[in-house]
């Protein structure tokens, strides 16, 4: 079996997105926006002659849990929760605060901020290309419990599509952060990033045809297990990312079940998995049966490729199975063993006769 751990780790270094801590530029962008919101909210509420609510911000998404990868399209995304110290009972229209955020940031970028269902999105452009965007989910509290409530709805949604729904962004961060420790945690992060890169390479980028990253991440907290292999040269155990990834993909496949679709008169592989925190909803609910079935078929193909790579004895051959088809160009292919050697003509030798003198 070929040892391609080195190639996996090089690949990981290539695709890994640095955290806020290490990424000054994005951290500054975040701080500019949060400061602007703080000031803007103050001005807005003073204009309305209301008490100015205090604000809290929560880092969310892959940055917060250190699972980000460099995006294919270079459109970096930052998720930053805005928590108003206000009660949902006083703000029956869930859009009111989202509109305030949108209006505050209107003059901040050339692209006008957009109110989406779960957040307000600000898009920064660089030479007319989106350079990154900031998603701002808006939360309030309740007079009757300790939950946070997320503002759902677009500006012109029907009344029934505008509502407050319980959410627990910090609980989700902690759930993911605390699922593994030490070397197992490091490998867990690498495997989640490999899955995200595979998703970027193998799925169309539009709409909900891609399985959501949060779904893959929380499934990994349950299905991932730390894998090492024995290295006879150094007599030590070392991390085996290929095996860990393959094991996770196999376990993930087993989470699917067959469901008959009456309309299309066909069986589909379906997956359902609930958030481990409020509101405990199915993370794959936005995907259609056809999209989930495609997800399953792609996992199946990926599993076969990982098995095939594991069976090759030459690292060159093993990496060629995975790169660029499943991981893109970032996955390195080492030089072939045979290419290191000169081609020679067929050789031969006469018989050989050795003898140790009989000392007796």
């Amino acid at each position, binding site marked *: 079996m070929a040892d391609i751990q080195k190639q996996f780790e090089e690949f990981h270094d290539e695709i890994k997105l640095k955290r806020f801590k290490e990424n000054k530029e994005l951290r500054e962008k975040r701080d500019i926006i949060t400061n602007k919101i703080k000031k803007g909210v103050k001005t807005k509420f003073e204009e309305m002659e209301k008490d100015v609510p205090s604000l809290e911000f929560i880092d969310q998404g892959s940055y917060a849990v250190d699972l980000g990868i460099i995006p294919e399209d270079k459109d970096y995304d930052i998720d930053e929760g805005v928590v108003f110290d206000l009660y949902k009972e006083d703000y029956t229209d869930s859009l009111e605060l989202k509109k305030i955020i949108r209006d505050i940031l209107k003059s901040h970028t050339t692209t006008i901020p957009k109110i989406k269902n779960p957040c307000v999105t600000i898009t920064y452009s660089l030479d007319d290309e989106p350079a990154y965007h900031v998603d701002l989910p808006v939360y309030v509290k309740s007079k009757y419990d300790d939950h946070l409530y997320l503002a759902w709805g677009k500006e012109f949604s029907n009344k029934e599509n505008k509502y407050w729904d319980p959410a627990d962004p910090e609980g989700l961060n902690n759930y993911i952060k605390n699922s593994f420790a030490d070397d197992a945690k490091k490998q867990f992060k690498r495997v989640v990033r490999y899955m995200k890169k595979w998703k970027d390479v193998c799925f169309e980028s539009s709409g909900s045809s891609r399985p959501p990253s949060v779904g893959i991440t929380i499934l990994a907290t349950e299905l991932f297990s730390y894998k090492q292999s024995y290295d006879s*040269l150094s*007599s030590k155990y070392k991390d085996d990312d290929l095996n860990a990834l393959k094991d996770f993909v196999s376990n993930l496949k087993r989470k699917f079940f067959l469901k008959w679709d009456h309309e299309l008169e066909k069986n589909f592989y379906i997956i359902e998995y609930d958030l481990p925190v409020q509101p405990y909803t199915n993370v794959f609910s936005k995907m259609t049966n056809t999209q989930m079935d495609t997800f399953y078929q792609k996992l199946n193909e990926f599993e076969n490729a990982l098995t095939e790579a594991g069976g090759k004895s030459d690292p060159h051959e093993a990496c060629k199975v995975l790169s660029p088809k499943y991981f893109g160009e970032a996955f390195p292919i080492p030089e072939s063993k*045979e*290419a*290191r*050697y*000169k*081609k*020679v*003509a*067929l*050789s*031969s*030798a*006469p*018989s*050989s*006769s*050795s*003898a*140790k*003198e*009989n000392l007796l």
Partner: protein
Amino acid sequence: MIKVKYRNNEILVEEHVIEVIQRLRQEDPTDYESGGMLIGSVLTNSNDVVIRDYTLPLMSDYKSRHRFIRKKQSHNAILQQKWEDSNKTVMYLGEWHTHPEMDPHYSPQDIKNWRKLLDKSNTFSDYLVFIIGGIEIYKVWIGCRRTKDIVLVYKGAYNENI
């Protein structure tokens, strides 16, 4: 991996080659001599040589406590197969055999045999590698095919972790 400098080149012997000789060494008073070809390649960018394969004693070979005769045809057939499987990159690069002594020395017969191999073998390399595996120690000699000089280049103890 063993590395030896010989003239302007480096000669490398991969660890698994030594491990095989270690496994076949004549520890027990009833163990017979073993031997076979050393097979390897020339690196593209340096002309250095790597011993990375071998043949093992075959049914047709003659084995006793103090003698080993490796036959020509069966070993050359295996060499040809390995050459084809390696995309034509391996070749004959010498001989190995075992001796029932702690620290091995070549016998007059061994030297005579090595000179014959330097003379009569048909291979791309200018020199051949000869290894004798004793019970505690193994030694590596290199012979030049043009001058027929044979020099001791390495003496080592086996890796006892195996």
